[in-house]
Protein backbone atom coordinates (compact mmCIF):
# COMPACT_ATOMS: atom_id res chain seq x y z
CA UNK A 1 0.00 0.00 0.00
CA UNK A 2 2.95 2.36 0.47
CA UNK A 3 3.25 3.04 -3.27
CA UNK A 4 -0.47 3.49 -3.51
CA UNK A 5 -0.53 6.06 -0.71
CA UNK A 6 2.33 7.81 -2.48
CA UNK A 7 0.10 8.05 -5.57
CA UNK A 8 -3.17 8.87 -3.86
CA UNK A 9 -2.10 11.48 -1.36
CA UNK A 10 -4.66 13.35 0.70
CA UNK A 11 -4.09 16.53 -1.31
CA UNK A 12 -5.06 14.63 -4.44
CA UNK A 13 -8.27 13.30 -2.88
CA UNK A 14 -9.08 16.79 -1.68
CA UNK A 15 -8.63 18.35 -5.14
CA UNK A 16 -10.50 15.45 -6.75
CA UNK A 17 -13.50 15.88 -4.46
CA UNK A 18 -13.41 19.66 -4.51
CA UNK A 19 -11.69 20.78 -7.70
CA UNK A 20 -10.63 24.45 -7.59
CA UNK A 21 -11.42 26.82 -10.46
CA UNK A 22 -13.94 24.38 -11.86
CA UNK A 23 -16.40 25.56 -14.49
CA UNK A 24 -16.48 27.80 -17.50
CA UNK A 25 -14.57 31.09 -17.57
CA UNK A 26 -16.93 33.52 -19.25
CA UNK A 27 -14.39 36.16 -20.32
CA UNK A 28 -11.72 33.71 -21.46
CA UNK A 29 -9.68 34.69 -24.53
CA UNK A 30 -7.86 31.35 -24.91
CA UNK A 31 -9.16 27.87 -24.57
CA UNK A 32 -8.36 24.30 -25.57
CA UNK A 33 -9.79 20.82 -25.24
CA UNK A 34 -7.59 17.99 -24.01
CA UNK A 35 -8.38 14.36 -24.58
CA UNK A 36 -6.82 11.20 -23.23
CA UNK A 37 -8.05 8.50 -25.59
CA UNK A 38 -6.69 5.82 -23.27
CA UNK A 39 -9.30 6.47 -20.61
CA UNK A 40 -11.76 8.74 -22.37
CA UNK A 41 -10.96 11.74 -20.19
CA UNK A 42 -11.86 15.09 -21.66
CA UNK A 43 -10.91 18.43 -20.25
CA UNK A 44 -11.64 21.96 -21.40
CA UNK A 45 -9.32 24.67 -20.20
CA UNK A 46 -10.23 28.38 -20.31
CA UNK A 47 -7.67 31.11 -19.91
CA UNK A 48 -7.72 34.86 -19.72
CA UNK A 49 -4.32 36.06 -20.87
CA UNK A 50 -3.39 39.75 -20.89
CA UNK A 51 0.06 41.16 -21.60
CA UNK A 52 1.56 37.69 -21.35
CA UNK A 53 0.08 37.29 -17.90
CA UNK A 54 -2.37 34.52 -17.00
CA UNK A 55 -4.99 36.63 -15.29
CA UNK A 56 -7.43 33.81 -14.71
CA UNK A 57 -8.05 30.21 -15.71
CA UNK A 58 -10.71 27.57 -15.13
CA UNK A 59 -11.40 24.04 -16.32
CA UNK A 60 -14.29 21.72 -17.00
CA UNK A 61 -14.49 18.00 -17.62
CA UNK A 62 -14.57 14.58 -16.08
CA UNK A 63 -11.54 12.49 -15.36
CA UNK A 64 -9.84 10.19 -12.94
CA UNK A 65 -8.68 11.39 -9.54
CA UNK A 66 -5.18 12.06 -10.82
CA UNK A 67 -6.20 14.09 -13.86
CA UNK A 68 -8.86 16.08 -11.98
CA UNK A 69 -6.49 16.85 -9.10
CA UNK A 70 -3.71 17.74 -11.50
CA UNK A 71 -5.95 20.17 -13.41
CA UNK A 72 -7.16 21.71 -10.16
CA UNK A 73 -3.66 22.11 -8.76
CA UNK A 74 -2.46 23.55 -12.05
CA UNK A 75 -5.14 26.25 -12.17
CA UNK A 76 -4.39 27.18 -8.57
CA UNK A 77 -0.70 27.47 -9.31
CA UNK A 78 -0.80 29.33 -12.61
CA UNK A 79 -3.10 32.18 -11.73
CA UNK A 80 -1.04 35.37 -12.01
CA UNK A 81 1.93 33.70 -13.64
CA UNK A 82 3.53 34.87 -16.89
CA UNK A 83 3.05 32.69 -19.93
CA UNK A 84 6.80 32.06 -20.14
CA UNK A 85 6.97 30.97 -16.51
CA UNK A 86 3.96 28.68 -16.95
CA UNK A 87 5.56 26.99 -19.96
CA UNK A 88 8.85 26.62 -18.08
CA UNK A 89 7.04 25.08 -15.14
CA UNK A 90 5.29 22.63 -17.47
CA UNK A 91 8.68 21.65 -18.89
CA UNK A 92 10.08 21.04 -15.43
CA UNK A 93 6.97 19.17 -14.26
CA UNK A 94 6.92 17.01 -17.40
CA UNK A 95 10.61 16.16 -17.17
CA UNK A 96 10.32 15.13 -13.53
CA UNK A 97 7.22 13.02 -14.17
CA UNK A 98 8.69 11.20 -17.14
CA UNK A 99 12.07 10.81 -15.43
CA UNK A 100 13.69 12.86 -18.18
CA UNK A 101 15.20 15.07 -15.46
CA UNK A 102 18.05 13.22 -13.84
CA UNK A 103 18.34 15.49 -10.83
CA UNK A 104 15.73 15.36 -8.14
CA UNK A 105 15.37 19.07 -7.57
CA UNK A 106 11.64 19.38 -7.10
CA UNK A 107 11.70 22.74 -5.32
CA UNK A 108 10.23 24.59 -8.30
CA UNK A 109 7.15 22.38 -8.23
CA UNK A 110 5.98 23.39 -4.77
CA UNK A 111 2.61 21.79 -4.03
CA UNK A 112 2.68 19.99 -7.39
CA UNK A 113 5.16 17.51 -5.89
CA UNK A 114 2.17 15.52 -4.61
CA UNK A 115 1.75 14.37 -8.21
CA UNK A 116 5.24 12.89 -8.43
CA UNK A 117 3.83 9.57 -7.19
CA UNK A 118 2.78 8.83 -10.77
CA UNK A 119 6.43 8.25 -11.66
CA UNK A 120 5.97 4.73 -10.35
CA UNK A 121 2.92 4.28 -12.62
CA UNK A 122 3.98 4.96 -16.22
CA UNK A 123 0.44 4.24 -17.45
CA UNK A 124 -0.83 7.09 -15.27
CA UNK A 125 1.69 9.81 -16.22
CA UNK A 126 -0.66 10.98 -18.97
CA UNK A 127 -3.42 11.46 -16.41
CA UNK A 128 -1.23 13.93 -14.57
CA UNK A 129 -0.04 15.77 -17.69
CA UNK A 130 -3.36 16.06 -19.59
CA UNK A 131 -4.20 19.46 -18.10
CA UNK A 132 -0.72 20.74 -18.85
CA UNK A 133 -0.77 19.56 -22.47
CA UNK A 134 -4.10 21.32 -22.78
CA UNK A 135 -2.58 24.46 -21.29
CA UNK A 136 0.21 24.32 -23.84
CA UNK A 137 -2.36 24.05 -26.64
CA UNK A 138 -4.47 26.88 -25.24
CA UNK A 139 -1.46 29.18 -25.00
CA UNK A 140 -0.58 28.31 -28.59
CA UNK A 141 -4.23 28.92 -29.49
CA UNK A 142 -4.67 25.49 -31.03
CA UNK A 143 -8.25 24.99 -32.08
CA UNK A 144 -8.11 21.22 -32.43
CA UNK A 145 -8.38 18.96 -29.40
CA UNK A 146 -4.96 17.90 -28.15
CA UNK A 147 -4.49 14.36 -27.05
CA UNK A 148 -2.05 12.71 -24.73
CA UNK A 149 -1.17 10.19 -27.43
Amino acid at each position, binding site marked *: *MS*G*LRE*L*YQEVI*FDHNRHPRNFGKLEDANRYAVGHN*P*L*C*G*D*RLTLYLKVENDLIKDLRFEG*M*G*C*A*ISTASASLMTERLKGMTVADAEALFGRFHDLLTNAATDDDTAALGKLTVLLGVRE*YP*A*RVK*CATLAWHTLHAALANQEQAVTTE
Partner: protein
Amino acid sequence: MSSQKAQVTPAPAPALDAVRLRADFPILRQEVHGKPLVYLDNAATTQKPRQVIEAINHYYTTDNANIHRGVHTLSQRATDDYEGAREKLRAFINAADTREIIFVRGATEGINLVAQSYGRPRFKAGDEILISAMEHHSNIVPWQMLCEQTGALLKVAPINDAGELVLDEFHKLLSPRTKLVAVVHISNALGTINPVREIIAAAHAVGAVVLLDGAQAVAHAAVDVRALNCDFYVFSSHKLYGPTGVGVLYGKRELLEAMPPYQGGGDMIRMVSFKKTEYNSLPYKFEAGTPHIAGGIGLGAAIDYVTAVGLDAIAAHEDQLLRYATEQALQVPGLRLIGTARAKAAILSFVLERIHPHDIGTIVDHEGVAIRTGHHCAMPVMDFFNVPATARASLALYNTRDDVDCFIAALHKVNEVFA
Protein backbone atom coordinates in the same frame (compact mmCIF):
# COMPACT_ATOMS: atom_id res chain seq x y z
CA MET B 1 -34.15 -12.36 -27.27
CA SER B 2 -34.12 -15.21 -29.70
CA SER B 3 -36.17 -18.23 -28.80
CA GLN B 4 -34.03 -20.30 -31.07
CA LYS B 5 -31.83 -22.60 -29.05
CA ALA B 6 -29.36 -25.25 -30.00
CA GLN B 7 -31.06 -28.15 -31.72
CA VAL B 8 -30.30 -30.55 -28.92
CA THR B 9 -30.25 -29.93 -25.21
CA PRO B 10 -26.62 -30.52 -24.31
CA ALA B 11 -25.83 -33.10 -21.68
CA PRO B 12 -24.44 -31.51 -18.50
CA ALA B 13 -20.86 -30.70 -19.32
CA PRO B 14 -18.21 -32.50 -17.31
CA ALA B 15 -16.92 -30.28 -14.56
CA LEU B 16 -13.77 -28.45 -15.39
CA ASP B 17 -10.91 -28.52 -12.89
CA ALA B 18 -9.65 -24.96 -13.17
CA VAL B 19 -7.13 -25.43 -10.38
CA ARG B 20 -5.51 -28.31 -12.24
CA LEU B 21 -5.62 -26.46 -15.58
CA ARG B 22 -3.93 -23.41 -14.04
CA ALA B 23 -0.78 -25.50 -13.74
CA ASP B 24 -0.59 -25.46 -17.56
CA PHE B 25 -0.19 -21.67 -17.56
CA PRO B 26 3.30 -20.75 -16.33
CA ILE B 27 2.60 -17.01 -16.32
CA LEU B 28 -0.07 -17.37 -13.65
CA ARG B 29 2.55 -18.54 -11.14
CA GLN B 30 3.77 -15.10 -10.21
CA GLU B 31 3.19 -12.30 -7.78
CA VAL B 32 2.30 -8.73 -8.68
CA HIS B 33 2.92 -6.09 -6.01
CA GLY B 34 3.59 -8.97 -3.60
CA LYS B 35 0.18 -10.58 -4.22
CA PRO B 36 -0.56 -13.69 -6.30
CA LEU B 37 -1.53 -12.64 -9.82
CA VAL B 38 -5.26 -12.77 -10.50
CA TYR B 39 -5.60 -12.39 -14.25
CA LEU B 40 -9.04 -11.11 -15.26
CA ASP B 41 -8.21 -9.33 -18.52
CA ASN B 42 -8.97 -12.30 -20.74
CA ALA B 43 -11.20 -10.39 -23.14
CA ALA B 44 -8.12 -8.35 -24.06
CA THR B 45 -5.92 -11.40 -24.41
CA THR B 46 -5.77 -14.80 -22.77
CA GLN B 47 -2.66 -16.34 -21.29
CA LYS B 48 -0.95 -19.21 -23.13
CA PRO B 49 -0.66 -22.76 -21.88
CA ARG B 50 2.69 -24.50 -21.84
CA GLN B 51 1.48 -26.69 -24.74
CA VAL B 52 1.20 -23.63 -27.00
CA ILE B 53 4.52 -22.16 -25.88
CA GLU B 54 6.18 -25.54 -26.47
CA ALA B 55 4.69 -25.88 -29.95
CA ILE B 56 6.13 -22.51 -30.95
CA ASN B 57 9.44 -23.37 -29.31
CA HIS B 58 9.50 -26.73 -31.07
CA TYR B 59 8.86 -25.10 -34.43
CA TYR B 60 11.70 -22.63 -34.07
CA THR B 61 14.02 -25.19 -32.50
CA THR B 62 13.57 -28.01 -34.99
CA ASP B 63 11.36 -27.17 -38.01
CA ASN B 64 11.84 -23.51 -38.94
CA ALA B 65 11.70 -23.10 -42.73
CA ASN B 66 9.56 -21.31 -45.26
CA ILE B 67 6.45 -23.18 -46.28
CA HIS B 68 4.85 -24.33 -49.53
CA ARG B 69 7.89 -23.99 -51.81
CA GLY B 70 10.78 -25.89 -50.36
CA VAL B 71 11.67 -29.43 -51.33
CA HIS B 72 13.89 -29.88 -48.31
CA THR B 73 12.86 -31.73 -45.19
CA LEU B 74 12.44 -28.79 -42.85
CA SER B 75 10.23 -26.97 -45.32
CA GLN B 76 8.09 -30.07 -45.65
CA ARG B 77 7.75 -30.40 -41.87
CA ALA B 78 6.90 -26.72 -41.46
CA THR B 79 4.33 -26.94 -44.27
CA ASP B 80 2.77 -30.06 -42.79
CA ASP B 81 2.42 -28.46 -39.37
CA TYR B 82 1.08 -25.19 -40.70
CA GLU B 83 -1.44 -26.89 -42.97
CA GLY B 84 -2.21 -29.29 -40.12
CA ALA B 85 -3.21 -26.27 -38.05
CA ARG B 86 -5.53 -25.16 -40.85
CA GLU B 87 -7.27 -28.51 -40.74
CA LYS B 88 -7.60 -28.24 -36.92
CA LEU B 89 -9.22 -24.83 -37.39
CA ARG B 90 -11.59 -26.21 -40.00
CA ALA B 91 -12.72 -28.92 -37.61
CA PHE B 92 -12.87 -26.46 -34.71
CA ILE B 93 -15.54 -24.30 -36.36
CA ASN B 94 -16.94 -27.17 -38.47
CA ALA B 95 -16.24 -25.55 -41.81
CA ALA B 96 -16.87 -27.75 -44.83
CA ASP B 97 -13.45 -27.34 -46.40
CA THR B 98 -9.93 -26.26 -45.35
CA ARG B 99 -9.97 -23.91 -48.37
CA GLU B 100 -12.48 -21.83 -46.42
CA ILE B 101 -9.95 -21.19 -43.64
CA ILE B 102 -7.85 -18.11 -44.45
CA PHE B 103 -4.98 -17.24 -42.12
CA VAL B 104 -4.93 -13.53 -41.34
CA ARG B 105 -3.26 -11.39 -38.70
CA GLY B 106 -6.36 -11.37 -36.54
CA ALA B 107 -10.08 -10.65 -36.49
CA THR B 108 -9.44 -7.04 -37.50
CA GLU B 109 -7.60 -7.99 -40.67
CA GLY B 110 -10.32 -10.54 -41.45
CA ILE B 111 -12.96 -7.81 -41.38
CA ASN B 112 -10.85 -5.46 -43.47
CA LEU B 113 -10.29 -8.23 -45.99
CA VAL B 114 -14.03 -8.81 -46.39
CA ALA B 115 -14.71 -5.07 -46.62
CA GLN B 116 -12.09 -4.50 -49.30
CA SER B 117 -12.31 -7.73 -51.25
CA TYR B 118 -16.00 -8.59 -50.97
CA GLY B 119 -17.54 -5.15 -50.48
CA ARG B 120 -15.46 -2.73 -52.48
CA PRO B 121 -15.93 -4.22 -55.95
CA ARG B 122 -19.65 -4.85 -55.36
CA PHE B 123 -21.17 -2.08 -53.32
CA LYS B 124 -22.41 1.14 -54.81
CA ALA B 125 -24.17 4.32 -53.76
CA GLY B 126 -27.46 3.51 -52.05
CA ASP B 127 -26.37 0.08 -50.81
CA GLU B 128 -26.48 -0.38 -47.07
CA ILE B 129 -24.28 -2.08 -44.51
CA LEU B 130 -25.95 -2.89 -41.21
CA ILE B 131 -24.01 -3.18 -37.96
CA SER B 132 -25.06 -2.94 -34.31
CA ALA B 133 -24.47 -0.24 -31.71
CA MET B 134 -22.34 -2.61 -29.61
CA GLU B 135 -19.58 -3.18 -32.15
CA HIS B 136 -15.86 -3.00 -31.47
CA HIS B 137 -14.15 -0.26 -33.48
CA SER B 138 -12.72 -2.96 -35.72
CA ASN B 139 -16.24 -3.82 -36.87
CA ILE B 140 -17.15 -0.15 -37.44
CA VAL B 141 -14.20 1.58 -39.05
CA PRO B 142 -13.53 -0.86 -41.95
CA TRP B 143 -17.18 -0.40 -42.98
CA GLN B 144 -16.97 3.39 -42.67
CA MET B 145 -13.92 3.28 -44.94
CA LEU B 146 -15.80 1.07 -47.39
CA CYS B 147 -18.76 3.48 -47.34
CA GLU B 148 -16.44 6.38 -48.17
CA GLN B 149 -15.02 4.40 -51.08
CA THR B 150 -18.29 3.15 -52.53
CA GLY B 151 -21.00 5.57 -51.44
CA ALA B 152 -22.73 2.82 -49.46
CA LEU B 153 -24.48 3.79 -46.23
CA LEU B 154 -23.72 2.51 -42.76
CA LYS B 155 -26.80 1.72 -40.68
CA VAL B 156 -26.63 0.99 -36.97
CA ALA B 157 -29.14 -1.19 -35.11
CA PRO B 158 -29.66 0.16 -31.59
CA ILE B 159 -29.20 -1.55 -28.23
CA ASN B 160 -31.34 -1.27 -25.09
CA ASP B 161 -30.34 -0.35 -21.54
CA ALA B 162 -29.36 -3.94 -20.81
CA GLY B 163 -26.93 -3.85 -23.72
CA GLU B 164 -29.02 -6.16 -25.88
CA LEU B 165 -29.65 -5.68 -29.57
CA VAL B 166 -33.17 -4.27 -30.14
CA LEU B 167 -34.34 -6.93 -32.56
CA ASP B 168 -37.47 -5.10 -33.71
CA GLU B 169 -35.34 -2.17 -34.80
CA PHE B 170 -32.81 -4.50 -36.36
CA HIS B 171 -35.54 -6.10 -38.48
CA LYS B 172 -36.87 -2.68 -39.48
CA LEU B 173 -33.45 -1.62 -40.71
CA LEU B 174 -33.16 -4.63 -43.00
CA SER B 175 -34.28 -4.07 -46.57
CA PRO B 176 -33.36 -5.14 -50.08
CA ARG B 177 -30.80 -2.31 -49.95
CA THR B 178 -28.96 -4.15 -47.17
CA LYS B 179 -25.99 -5.89 -48.79
CA LEU B 180 -24.07 -6.93 -45.72
CA VAL B 181 -24.76 -7.36 -42.02
CA ALA B 182 -21.76 -7.34 -39.67
CA VAL B 183 -22.36 -8.02 -35.99
CA VAL B 184 -20.42 -9.16 -33.01
CA HIS B 185 -21.16 -12.68 -31.76
CA ILE B 186 -20.29 -11.84 -28.14
CA SER B 187 -19.72 -8.19 -27.22
CA ASN B 188 -16.30 -7.42 -25.75
CA ALA B 189 -17.52 -4.37 -23.85
CA LEU B 190 -20.78 -5.81 -22.48
CA GLY B 191 -20.61 -9.60 -22.68
CA THR B 192 -23.89 -9.72 -24.60
CA ILE B 193 -24.39 -12.87 -26.66
CA ASN B 194 -26.22 -11.86 -29.81
CA PRO B 195 -29.05 -13.98 -31.24
CA VAL B 196 -26.97 -14.67 -34.30
CA ARG B 197 -29.17 -17.39 -35.81
CA GLU B 198 -32.11 -15.03 -35.98
CA ILE B 199 -29.88 -12.24 -37.30
CA ILE B 200 -28.47 -14.47 -40.03
CA ALA B 201 -31.84 -15.84 -41.09
CA ALA B 202 -33.34 -12.36 -41.30
CA ALA B 203 -30.36 -10.97 -43.22
CA HIS B 204 -30.44 -13.85 -45.70
CA ALA B 205 -34.15 -13.28 -46.22
CA VAL B 206 -33.36 -9.85 -47.72
CA GLY B 207 -30.37 -11.17 -49.66
CA ALA B 208 -27.62 -9.77 -47.45
CA VAL B 209 -24.50 -11.69 -46.49
CA VAL B 210 -23.51 -11.88 -42.84
CA LEU B 211 -20.14 -11.45 -41.17
CA LEU B 212 -19.84 -12.43 -37.51
CA ASP B 213 -17.06 -11.00 -35.37
CA GLY B 214 -16.23 -14.00 -33.23
CA ALA B 215 -13.19 -12.57 -31.43
CA GLN B 216 -14.82 -12.94 -28.01
CA ALA B 217 -16.94 -15.95 -28.85
CA VAL B 218 -14.63 -18.76 -29.92
CA ALA B 219 -12.96 -19.18 -26.52
CA HIS B 220 -16.26 -19.29 -24.65
CA ALA B 221 -18.62 -21.50 -26.64
CA ALA B 222 -18.51 -24.04 -29.44
CA VAL B 223 -18.98 -22.37 -32.81
CA ASP B 224 -20.37 -24.24 -35.81
CA VAL B 225 -20.27 -22.03 -38.89
CA ARG B 226 -22.37 -24.45 -40.94
CA ALA B 227 -25.10 -24.73 -38.32
CA LEU B 228 -25.06 -20.92 -38.00
CA ASN B 229 -25.03 -20.59 -41.78
CA CYS B 230 -22.99 -17.38 -41.54
CA ASP B 231 -21.15 -16.24 -44.65
CA PHE B 232 -18.03 -14.92 -42.95
CA TYR B 233 -16.69 -15.53 -39.45
CA VAL B 234 -13.53 -13.94 -38.04
CA PHE B 235 -11.53 -14.50 -34.87
CA SER B 236 -8.09 -13.96 -33.37
CA SER B 237 -5.73 -16.57 -31.98
CA HIS B 238 -4.60 -14.58 -28.98
CA LYS B 239 -8.01 -14.47 -27.32
CA LEU B 240 -8.15 -18.25 -27.72
CA TYR B 241 -5.01 -19.14 -25.73
CA GLY B 242 -2.85 -18.91 -28.87
CA PRO B 243 -0.14 -16.43 -29.92
CA THR B 244 -0.76 -12.87 -31.09
CA GLY B 245 -0.44 -11.84 -34.72
CA VAL B 246 -2.53 -14.59 -36.26
CA GLY B 247 -6.22 -15.22 -36.73
CA VAL B 248 -8.76 -16.71 -39.06
CA LEU B 249 -11.20 -15.58 -41.67
CA TYR B 250 -13.75 -18.22 -42.49
CA GLY B 251 -15.77 -17.61 -45.64
CA LYS B 252 -18.15 -19.72 -47.66
CA ARG B 253 -16.18 -21.11 -50.56
CA GLU B 254 -18.35 -19.76 -53.35
CA LEU B 255 -18.05 -16.25 -51.89
CA LEU B 256 -14.28 -16.49 -51.45
CA GLU B 257 -13.86 -17.88 -54.98
CA ALA B 258 -15.61 -14.85 -56.43
CA MET B 259 -13.53 -12.33 -54.46
CA PRO B 260 -10.33 -10.76 -55.80
CA PRO B 261 -7.12 -11.07 -53.75
CA TYR B 262 -6.74 -8.67 -50.82
CA GLN B 263 -2.99 -8.18 -51.15
CA GLY B 264 -0.52 -9.05 -53.87
CA GLY B 265 2.76 -10.84 -53.30
CA GLY B 266 4.32 -14.22 -52.94
CA ASP B 267 2.27 -17.35 -52.25
CA MET B 268 -0.94 -15.84 -53.62
CA ILE B 269 0.07 -16.37 -57.23
CA ARG B 270 0.19 -19.32 -59.57
CA MET B 271 2.10 -17.72 -62.41
CA VAL B 272 3.59 -14.26 -62.82
CA SER B 273 4.79 -12.50 -65.92
CA PHE B 274 4.96 -8.79 -66.63
CA LYS B 275 1.98 -9.16 -68.90
CA LYS B 276 -0.32 -11.05 -66.61
CA THR B 277 -0.47 -12.74 -63.25
CA GLU B 278 -2.57 -15.74 -62.51
CA TYR B 279 -3.76 -15.93 -58.93
CA ASN B 280 -3.42 -18.97 -56.73
CA SER B 281 -6.42 -20.97 -55.62
CA LEU B 282 -8.04 -20.84 -52.19
CA PRO B 283 -6.97 -20.34 -49.49
CA TYR B 284 -3.57 -19.10 -50.76
CA LYS B 285 -5.13 -16.42 -52.96
CA PHE B 286 -5.66 -14.43 -49.76
CA GLU B 287 -2.34 -15.27 -48.11
CA ALA B 288 0.27 -13.05 -49.74
CA GLY B 289 3.75 -13.16 -48.26
CA THR B 290 5.35 -15.49 -45.77
CA PRO B 291 2.75 -15.92 -43.05
CA HIS B 292 3.14 -16.13 -39.28
CA ILE B 293 4.05 -19.82 -39.50
CA ALA B 294 4.91 -20.24 -35.82
CA GLY B 295 1.72 -18.40 -34.95
CA GLY B 296 -0.41 -20.70 -37.05
CA ILE B 297 1.22 -23.75 -35.50
CA GLY B 298 0.81 -22.26 -32.01
CA LEU B 299 -2.85 -21.59 -32.75
CA GLY B 300 -3.20 -25.23 -33.80
CA ALA B 301 -1.81 -26.25 -30.41
CA ALA B 302 -4.27 -23.89 -28.70
CA ILE B 303 -7.14 -25.54 -30.58
CA ASP B 304 -5.89 -28.94 -29.40
CA TYR B 305 -5.80 -27.59 -25.86
CA VAL B 306 -9.29 -26.10 -25.69
CA THR B 307 -10.73 -29.08 -27.55
CA ALA B 308 -9.23 -31.44 -24.98
CA VAL B 309 -10.65 -29.36 -22.12
CA GLY B 310 -13.95 -29.14 -23.98
CA LEU B 311 -15.78 -26.00 -25.12
CA ASP B 312 -18.98 -27.07 -23.37
CA ALA B 313 -17.10 -27.57 -20.11
CA ILE B 314 -15.42 -24.17 -20.53
CA ALA B 315 -18.76 -22.49 -21.23
CA ALA B 316 -20.40 -24.11 -18.18
CA HIS B 317 -17.46 -23.23 -15.93
CA GLU B 318 -17.34 -19.61 -17.03
CA ASP B 319 -21.10 -19.27 -16.80
CA GLN B 320 -21.07 -20.46 -13.17
CA LEU B 321 -18.19 -18.15 -12.40
CA LEU B 322 -19.89 -15.18 -14.07
CA ARG B 323 -23.03 -15.74 -12.02
CA TYR B 324 -20.98 -15.91 -8.84
CA ALA B 325 -18.95 -12.82 -9.78
CA THR B 326 -22.12 -10.90 -10.66
CA GLU B 327 -23.77 -11.77 -7.32
CA GLN B 328 -20.67 -10.75 -5.41
CA ALA B 329 -20.09 -7.59 -7.42
CA LEU B 330 -23.62 -6.36 -6.76
CA GLN B 331 -22.78 -6.40 -3.03
CA VAL B 332 -20.03 -3.83 -3.58
CA PRO B 333 -21.37 -0.40 -2.58
CA GLY B 334 -21.78 2.01 -5.50
CA LEU B 335 -21.20 -0.61 -8.19
CA ARG B 336 -23.27 -0.45 -11.35
CA LEU B 337 -23.07 -3.13 -14.02
CA ILE B 338 -22.78 -1.95 -17.62
CA GLY B 339 -24.32 -4.70 -19.71
CA THR B 340 -26.96 -6.88 -18.11
CA ALA B 341 -28.12 -8.89 -21.09
CA ARG B 342 -30.06 -12.06 -20.33
CA ALA B 343 -27.69 -13.97 -22.59
CA LYS B 344 -24.22 -13.01 -21.45
CA ALA B 345 -20.76 -14.55 -21.40
CA ALA B 346 -17.59 -14.21 -19.37
CA ILE B 347 -17.54 -10.41 -19.09
CA LEU B 348 -18.33 -8.14 -16.17
CA SER B 349 -18.23 -4.50 -17.17
CA PHE B 350 -18.96 -1.99 -14.41
CA VAL B 351 -18.47 1.44 -12.93
CA LEU B 352 -18.17 2.58 -9.31
CA GLU B 353 -19.95 5.66 -8.13
CA ARG B 354 -17.66 8.70 -8.01
CA ILE B 355 -14.55 6.63 -8.80
CA HIS B 356 -13.05 6.71 -12.26
CA PRO B 357 -12.31 3.30 -13.84
CA HIS B 358 -8.67 4.28 -14.23
CA ASP B 359 -8.34 4.71 -10.47
CA ILE B 360 -10.09 1.36 -9.95
CA GLY B 361 -7.62 -0.31 -12.30
CA THR B 362 -4.55 1.06 -10.52
CA ILE B 363 -5.78 0.17 -7.05
CA VAL B 364 -6.87 -3.41 -7.87
CA ASP B 365 -3.54 -3.90 -9.66
CA HIS B 366 -1.94 -3.21 -6.30
CA GLU B 367 -3.90 -6.18 -5.00
CA GLY B 368 -2.49 -8.32 -7.81
CA VAL B 369 -5.72 -8.18 -9.84
CA ALA B 370 -5.42 -7.43 -13.56
CA ILE B 371 -8.57 -5.95 -15.10
CA ARG B 372 -9.17 -3.66 -18.05
CA THR B 373 -10.20 -0.05 -17.75
CA GLY B 374 -11.10 2.25 -20.58
CA HIS B 375 -13.46 2.33 -23.53
CA HIS B 376 -12.59 -1.20 -24.70
CA CYS B 377 -12.39 0.04 -28.30
CA ALA B 378 -16.14 0.56 -28.19
CA MET B 379 -16.54 4.33 -27.74
CA PRO B 380 -20.12 4.33 -29.08
CA VAL B 381 -21.06 1.86 -26.31
CA MET B 382 -19.53 4.18 -23.70
CA ASP B 383 -21.50 7.10 -25.18
CA PHE B 384 -24.72 5.08 -25.06
CA PHE B 385 -24.30 4.33 -21.37
CA ASN B 386 -23.06 7.89 -20.79
CA VAL B 387 -19.81 6.83 -19.15
CA PRO B 388 -16.30 7.86 -20.25
CA ALA B 389 -15.03 4.37 -19.59
CA THR B 390 -15.76 1.22 -17.64
CA ALA B 391 -13.78 -1.28 -15.64
CA ARG B 392 -14.02 -4.79 -17.00
CA ALA B 393 -13.23 -8.16 -15.50
CA SER B 394 -13.30 -11.00 -18.00
CA LEU B 395 -13.06 -14.71 -17.32
CA ALA B 396 -11.21 -17.65 -18.81
CA LEU B 397 -11.06 -21.39 -18.23
CA TYR B 398 -8.30 -21.04 -15.61
CA ASN B 399 -10.15 -18.60 -13.37
CA THR B 400 -11.51 -19.80 -10.04
CA ARG B 401 -13.87 -18.66 -7.32
CA ASP B 402 -10.74 -17.63 -5.42
CA ASP B 403 -9.89 -15.27 -8.27
CA VAL B 404 -13.36 -13.76 -8.04
CA ASP B 405 -13.03 -13.42 -4.26
CA CYS B 406 -9.69 -11.58 -4.66
CA PHE B 407 -11.24 -9.32 -7.27
CA ILE B 408 -14.22 -8.47 -5.07
CA ALA B 409 -11.96 -7.86 -2.05
CA ALA B 410 -9.89 -5.53 -4.24
CA LEU B 411 -13.04 -3.58 -5.19
CA HIS B 412 -13.85 -3.13 -1.52
CA LYS B 413 -10.30 -1.84 -1.13
CA VAL B 414 -10.96 0.72 -3.88
CA ASN B 415 -13.97 1.99 -1.97
CA GLU B 416 -11.86 2.09 1.19
CA VAL B 417 -9.08 4.11 -0.44
CA PHE B 418 -11.61 6.57 -1.83
CA ALA B 419 -13.78 6.65 1.33
